[in-house]
């Protein structure tokens, strides 16, 4: 059963909702990233596909807008997969209760892990911000930090979603 299909279907309405705010004058499409991910083998670093859509879009000139659009794409994909994995965790916790098994709180553990990841991403990208000379929260380095860390968390949760 294709998780990819499920994600694609679920992600589309969110992306459509997110896009207009960035779409003024830019032509962003996640195709380059998705084609890249579909074509690589297991050993290849998936991070080489991250940012490809932003780079394709940049030919129109709005580098910051294109980067924001790809960040929004990964954020939406993260929301979808997190929701899916959370829903299953809640279901399993509920089954344990109704079957009188040892009580479990996988949903709580997942939420704590996600919250601590968000805190880590914020602090890691704040470090990048001081690390590079501009010190600007909107600098390309800080945006790239958000982009890559978010994509990696998406890869992680999508892999969990495939196992379960």
């Amino acid at each position: 059963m294709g998780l990819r299909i499920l994600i694609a279907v679920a992600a589309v309405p969110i992306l459509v909702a997110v896009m207009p705010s960035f779409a003024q004058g830019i032509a962003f499409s996640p195709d380059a990233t998705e084609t890249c991910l579909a074509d690589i083998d297991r050993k290849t670093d998936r991070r080489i596909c991250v940012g490809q859509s932003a780079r394709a879009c940049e030919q129109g000139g709005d580098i910051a807008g294109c980067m924001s659009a790809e960040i929004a794409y990964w954020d939406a994909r993260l929301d979808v997969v997190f929701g899916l994995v959370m829903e299953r965790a809640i279901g399993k916790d509920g089954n344990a209760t109704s079957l009188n098994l040892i009580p479990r709180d996988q949903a709580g553990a997942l939420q704590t892990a996600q919250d601590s990841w968000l805190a880590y991403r914020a602090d890691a990208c704040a470090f990048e911000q001081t690390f590079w000379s501009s010190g600007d929260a909107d600098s390309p380095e800080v945006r790239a930090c958000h982009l890559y860390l978010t994509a990696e968390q998406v890869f992680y949760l999508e892999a969990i979603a495939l196992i379960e």
Partner: protein
Amino acid sequence: MWMILAFSAGVASSAAQPATNDSTGFTPKATETCLATMAESQDPATCIGASANLCMETTEGGWSTYGMSTCLNHELQYWDARLNAAYKDVQAKRKATDKEMTELESSAPSQSESLLAMQRAWIGFRDAKCDYERSLWGGGTGGGPATVSCHMYITAEQALFLEADAMVE
């Protein structure tokens, strides 16, 4: 911070030893060879665990729950030592920059303080992520090695991340 890192990692100092005192004969060579010979676009994560796997294959009882945990823990300690070394390196460079900035009477935020904040947040993330992974195993015995494996992977990834930052003056 140094204490926090060392404490969190358990026996970090023993990781610098090339060979082990137990019967596994663990060495990090397979991981290092993999990293040194990988293709440019290869995911470094594909090399993480190579030495632990070899240890499981070549040790009698290596695939038992105990054997797996022991081998994985050896590679965890190896990466933890690399992480600590990289952290120390980045910290020294960032402190040097902070000092220069102070001398220039710059109001730039402290790089070494934000590095510390990042690393503390990473420790919280690591522990929460690995607690969650353990929960995927329910109460099963696989949860033991799985948790050590989780710590090994995330520590290795953070070590590689900081080693890249350590290359910037």
